């Protein structure tokens, strides 16, 4: 396999794990799948660092590995144990239709990016197609899931897609990677506080419970 093939193999693997996130029906495997996706992403970023001769990307890979593959899954496990969150994932749309919608989204992003970015140079545009797929699948997950933890995982898998995009764009300044890493950290703090606040008042973090208190319906 040439260097391009390996980059594509890893990026494709990330997309595949996004699909896998879509059909998990319990929280622990969902968290594990997310950790696996982050791990493959870390490998992919490390590979890009190698082929682009951009050693600073190794830092991004390190953040992916340490932060998203290890730390965040541990914190999430800790959260569901301490908050006694229901371990099943409540879904809004069934798994079958969700997967079909996911396939359509991947087809869309491949069709769009392969055509649109064709002028930009060999390696980059296929990577962008994979990255956009991951972003769109993450969004799909956010809209088809009901409880907060799985929505948060959906959000973080969107961030994974963005890291894939940022590292696929050749020579993109390090600014963006730091921003993403930083924002994940901040986002987690916010989420943590939120989960706690919600816990203060409600018995579960199922957002449907909160939905019944819509301001409009008083």
């Amino acid at each position, binding site marked *: 396999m040439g260097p391009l093939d390996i980059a594509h193999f890893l990026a494709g693997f990330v997309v595949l794990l996004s699909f896998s996130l879509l059909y998990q029906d319990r929280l622990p495997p969902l968290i594990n799948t997310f950790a696996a996706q982050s791990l493959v992403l870390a490998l992919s970023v490390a590979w890009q660092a190698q082929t682009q001769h951009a050693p600073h990307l190794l830092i991004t890979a390190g953040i992916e590995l340490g932060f998203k593959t290890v730390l965040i899954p541990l914190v999430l496990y800790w959260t569901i144990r301490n908050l006694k969150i229901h371990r099943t994932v409540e879904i809004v749309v069934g798994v079958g239709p969700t997967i079909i919608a996911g396939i359509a989204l991947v087809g869309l992003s491949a069709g769009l990016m392969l055509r649109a970015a064709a002028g930009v140079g060999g390696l980059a545009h296929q990577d962008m197609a994979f990255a956009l797929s991951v972003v769109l699948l993450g969004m799909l997950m956010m809209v088809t899931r009901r409880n907060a933890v799985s929505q948060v995982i959906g959000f973080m898998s969107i961030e994974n897609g*963005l890291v894939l995009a940022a590292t696929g*764009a050749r020579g993109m300044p390090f600014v963006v990677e730091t921003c993403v890493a930083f924002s994940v950290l901040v986002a987690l703090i916010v989420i943590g506080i939120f989960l706690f*606040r919600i816990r203060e*008042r409600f018995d579960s973090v199922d957002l449907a419970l909160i939905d019944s208190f819509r*301001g409009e319906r008083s």
Partner: protein
Amino acid sequence: MNWLVYPAALVLLLPMAGAFLLALIPSYRVGAWINMIAAGCTFLASLGLLTVRTAGSHGLLFVDDLNVAFVVITSLVGFTTAVFSKGYIGHQIETGHLQRPHLRFYHALFQILLGAMNLALLTSITGVMWAAIEIATLVTVLMVGVYRSHEALEAAWKYFILSSVGIALALFGTILVYMVAQPVLGEGLPAMTWEKLAAHAGSYDPMLSSVAFVFILLGYGTKAGLFPIHAWLPDAHAEGPTPVSAMLSGLLLNVAIYAILRFKMLFAGSLGIIAPGTMMVTLGLASVIFAGLMLYRRRDIKRFFAYSSIEHMGIIAFAFGIGGPLANFAGLLHMAMHSLTKSGLFFAVGHIIRVKGSQKFDAIGGLTSSHPMLGWTFVACVVAIAGLPPFGLFTSEFLVMTAAVNANPLLALGLAVGLLLSLGALFQCLHRVAFGAPRGELGRDEGTLLPVLVHLAIVLGFGIFIPGEIVSWFQHVARMLG
């Protein structure tokens, strides 16, 4: 290095220093004073930017006529909001609506928000602008949830989820813009710097430019509350504390529009792409009409004016979408006037909530007879936000309409329908709130109305006479926007 840098750096450093100091101070009362003083100093520093408005880039910062205008407005409204917030939040604590421990970092967050918005406006790097807007969003999420009620938590969570998706789209767009610029400008930082990007506008790959702009528009459009992706906005405005509603409507929405404008400048000149303007006109018009319809049958006064903000963001997107010197001028004027009017209006609404102890329309009525000063100030604010003479929004809406008629009479018709719809709803609101027999509690209004009156005076001044210097300034920016 130019001495101009100093005011530009000051409007960033002062809020940061303020935030640091405020994070250390546990007392609410002292914090409120420091917050006010820090915001006041930031405003003075922003006036320093006004004195010399030469365009130029200084490392990470970048100054031109477009962003200076917004920095001054942001700092002014930030200062008046700090003044209003001091009395309002104090009152909410006294009445037990807010608990002190939950407000521990309120003022520090206030300053971080102010600093992040100024950073988004002044930075010369696309990625930094994105990060600054993300920081501003996260800070406002925390501020919206400060009441800790079911509704406030739901609003904050909804805001967080939707704006995260928006932010993700915007980052993807930012990365695509880098990829578009990279073949022209080479690898590295130049392909993310506004000045360099703008210098080569028109030479980018048309197809990828279109895709990039779609992501930018949807991403930052979420933050600006444009129609299909606005759902967070009414909840966040209604459930957050009133000073935060004023900052959201008056400032943060403007910053999001500013981001869209910067990117539009890059791609407007490219041939063979889906014109950025067309997309903005569509989203804008949809927002105006949708918000016009949603303004009816609201039960909550803050939610009502949140929909009015969606309408005005729609008008602004519509104006810049049409483009050309006249429409751009109108759009800029509308942004400035809407900022001042809407934040002033929220201050007035804050006073009403103080007096009535509720933000439901059912509990508010006959203000002009029970509280003449507050009632008539509110009437003036609503007349101003409706775009009626003699206030500044009349001038800008009139110019938008003129530009729309010139561009395409059908578009003008659509806009007119939206504007009339909201006009009707605003009159209905006036009728319920300001006139008739007094309804609800009759508390005394102790706070100062000065911030509202200052905003109204400026808006009235602009409605009657716009100084020549400001006209030529805005005309220059309008030409820049293409």
